[in-house]
C-alpha cells in the first residue's frame, strides 16, 4: 500500500453502517487510521430547551423520544426524578411493572446492537437471524403495550398500563420461545470463526482508560469494571430481585457483545421473577406537591447509566430538566479504541459502544 502518505477520509454524516448521522474525519494512512476527529450535533434537536417550556406530563412524551432504542429508560428515569422532586412513593405493583418494561426493552436493544455488528461485518444471514429473534420481543411489546418502539409504559407516579394474567401468560410463553434462540446466538457470537476473527481483540479499552474516561454500561463491564446502577443504588423492584452483574475481561468488541448477550439471560430471569412476585394493587400514585426542589435520579439503561436532574419552582413547568445518557460518556472512549485501527474497523468499533447519537445530542 502507498507509503506514508496520509489523506483525510470523511465518514458520514450519512453512512449505511451508522444508524444515525455523525461525522468522523479520519486521517488515514493506507488502511490505518491515524487520527479521528468527530463532528457531532447533527441530531441536536434542542430538547432541553423544549423541556423547559412544557409541563411535567408533556415532558414524559418528549423524553421518551430522546432515542427510541432506550426510550423506556428515559421515561423511567424521568418519572423517577419527578417523583424524587415531588417526594412521591409509587405503589409496589408499579415498581415491578416498570422492571418488566425496562428489561423487555433491554433485551430488544441488546439484540439490535448485536445484529448490527453482524451487519457491519457483512454477515447477512446472522444479522437477519438475530433481527428475527428480536422480532419476538417486538411482538411482545406491541401486544402488551401497543407500540413497537416507544412503549409509553411509565408515567409520573407509576405505570401507565397494567399487565393482566392473560398477558403475563403470553409474556412467559414468548420468553420460553426466545431463550433457546438467544443461547444459540450467544454461542455463534462466541465461537463463530468469522465473528471471532473480526471482533476479538478489536477496539481495546484497557481498565485504566475505562476508569479515567468514566465509561458506563456494557462498555465498562466489557473492560472488567463491575458497575451497574441496578446493584449500586437499587431502584424500582431491583432491590428485591436476584440477578448478576455480567462482566468480561477482554476489553474488546467481542467482550462487549458477550456482556450484552449474557445480560439478556439476566433480563429474561428478571422478567420471570417480576411476573412471579408482582403483588396485586394500584399501579399509580397520586401526584405529590409541587415545591421548589432539586432532585436527581439514575437508572441503568441498556447502554449504561442514565442520569436526570430536575429543578422545580412550584409550577408544573420544570425550571431545568437536564439529562445525560450513557453514550455521552462512552463517545470519548472511541478515541482510545480507534488508535491505529483499520479503516474497515471504524464502523465496527463505533458500534461496539452501542452509540446512540440522538441520545447524546438531544
Amino acid at each position, binding site marked *: *500500500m*502507498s507509503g506514508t502518505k496520509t*489523506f*483525510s*477520509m*470523511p465518514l458520514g454524516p450519512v*453512512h*449505511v*453502517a451508522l444508524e444515525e448521522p455523525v461525522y468522523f474525519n479520519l486521517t*488515514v494512512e*493506507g*488502511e490505518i487510521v491515524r487520527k479521528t476527529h468527530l463532528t457531532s450535533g447533527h441530531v441536536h434537536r434542542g430538547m432541553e430547551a423544549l423541556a423547559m417550556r412544557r409541563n411535567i406530563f408533556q415532558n414524559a412524551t418528549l423524553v421518551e423520544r430522546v432515542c427510541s432504542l432506550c426510550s423506556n429508560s428515559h421515561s423511567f428515569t424521568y418519572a423517577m426524578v419527578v417523583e424524587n422532586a415531588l417526594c412521591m412513593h409509587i405503589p409496589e405493583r408499579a415498581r415491578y411493572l416498570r422492571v418488566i418494561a425496562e428489561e423487555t426493552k433491554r433485551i430488544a436493544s441488546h439484540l439490535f446492537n448485536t445484529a448490527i455488528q*453482524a*451487519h*457491519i*461485518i*457483512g*454477515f*447477512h*444471514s*446472522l444479522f*437477519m*437471524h438475530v433481527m*428475527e429473534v428480536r422480532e419476538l420481543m417486538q411482538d411482545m411489546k406491541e401486544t402488551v403495550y401497543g407500540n413497537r418502539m416507544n412503549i409509553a409504559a411509565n408515567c409520573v407516579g407509576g405505570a401507565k398500563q397494567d399487565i393482566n394474567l392473560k398477558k403475563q401468560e403470553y409474556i412467559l410463553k414468548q420468553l420460553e420461545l426466545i431463550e433457546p434462540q438467544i443461547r444459540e446466538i450467544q454461542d455463534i457470537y462466541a465461537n463463530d470463526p*468469522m*465473528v471471532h*476473527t*473480526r471482533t476479538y481483540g478489536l477496539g481495546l479499552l484497557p481498565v485504566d482508560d475505562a476508569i479515567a474516561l468514566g465509561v458506563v454500561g456494557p462498555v465498562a463491564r466489557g473492560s472488567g469494571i463491575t458497575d451497574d446502577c441496578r446493584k449500586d443504588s437499587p431502584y424500582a423492584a431491583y432491590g428485591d430481585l436476584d440477578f448478576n452483574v455480567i462482566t468480561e475481561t477482554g476489553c474488546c468488541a467481542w467482550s462487549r457483545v458477550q456482556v450484552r448477550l449474557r445480560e439478556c439471560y439476566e433480563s429474561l430471569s428478571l422478567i420471570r421473577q417480576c411476573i412471579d412476585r408482582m403483588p396485586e394493587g394500584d399501579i399509580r400514585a397520586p401526584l405529590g406537591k409541587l415545591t421548589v426542589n432539586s432532585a436527581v435520579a439514575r437508572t441503568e439503561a441498556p447502554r449504561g447509566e442514565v442520569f436526570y436532574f430536575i429543578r422545580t419552582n412550584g409550577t408544573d413547568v420544570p425550571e431545568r430538566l437536564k439529562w445525560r445518557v450513557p453514550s455521552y460518556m462512552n463517545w470519548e472512549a472511541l478515541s482510545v479504541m480507534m488508535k491505529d485501527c*483499520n*479503516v*474497515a*474497523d*471504524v*464502523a465496527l468499533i463505533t458500534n461496539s459502544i452501542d452509540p446512540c447519537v440522538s441520545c447524546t445530542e438531544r
Partner: protein
Amino acid sequence: MLDTILAILHMCIFPGGVFALAVALFFKALDRRIAARVQRRVGPPLIQPVLDIAKLLTKETLIPRTAHRAAFIMAPVLAFTGMAVCAAFIPVPGVYSGLTNMGDLLVILYLLPIPAIALMLGAAASSNTFSSVGFSREMLMTLAYELPLIMILLAVAMLVGKETGVGAEFSLANILSYQAANGSLGFHPVMLPAFVAYMIFLPGTMGVAPFDIPEAEQEVLEGPLLEYGGPLLALYQIGSALKTFVVLGLGVALFFPGTLCDFWPVNLVWFVVKCFLLMLVTLTVVKAATGRFRIDQAFWFYIKFPAVLALISLVLVWWL
C-alpha cells in the same frame, strides 16, 4: 474472413454475449433466491436481475464534476467488452470447443482481470475518497487472487503437456480433448488441491462474501461503484454477470468437462447444471454462511491457502 465473422458471432451470441448473459443473470437470480431461502425469506422474483438492469438503463447518468470524464465513462465499457470477448473463449464441452485458433489459457488469463482493472480505473476517475480506498483494496485483492490463479492454470497446462509430451499445453481445446480421452482432471488426485484452490479463488474474483471487501457497503459505501449510477452501473453489472459465466465455465472446462452423450442440447444443459453446482458450492452457500474479512486478513488468507494448494499441485505435477 469467415473465421472473423464466426468469432464475432461467438462473442455476441453463443457462448459469449446473449447466451452468457442469459445464463449469468439466471444464475444471479437463483443465487439471490437461494440465499433468501437460506435466510427463510421469499426473495426477489427470478426476473429481478433483468429488471434491475432495465431500471438502471432508464435512469439519468450523473458524472461528478471532479471526475475524469472520459476515463469515468470508459471504465464500465471496458469491463463489459473485456468480459464479452472473454466469454467467447469459454468452451462448452460437447457443443462448442472455444475459439480454437486463437484462444488458449493465456488469453483468458490476460482477459480475466479486466473487470478489476476497469473497476480500478473507474474508481481512480471518480476521484472520491471512498472510491480510492476501494481502489487500493481492489488492487490488493487482485494481487492476492491472481497468484493462485496463475499457478492453477500452470498446473493444468503442465499436467496435460507432460502426458501428451509437449511440455506445457495452453490450448483449451487440447486440454478438453485430453480430458475426454483420459478422464476429468477434477478426479485426478494430483489436481485435487488445484481444484480446491480454484474454488477458493471464485468468491475472491467475484467479490462476494467473505471477500466483498473492495465494495463493502458498510465500510466504503460500495467503494469503486460509489459514484456510478444509471446506464454506466448497468454496464458494470452486465460485465460482472458475464464474468460469473466466464469463471464458472472455465472451472468446469478445466476440471469437469465430461459430457453425457453426443446430443448437443443435453450437453449444453449439463454444462449449465455443472456451472450452477459450482456456483452453489463456492458462491451462494459461502456467502450465506460467512461475514467479511478485513483486507489484510483476506490477503494473507489467499497467500496461505489457495496459493499453497495450487503450489502443491504444481510441484506434484513437476515431480510425478
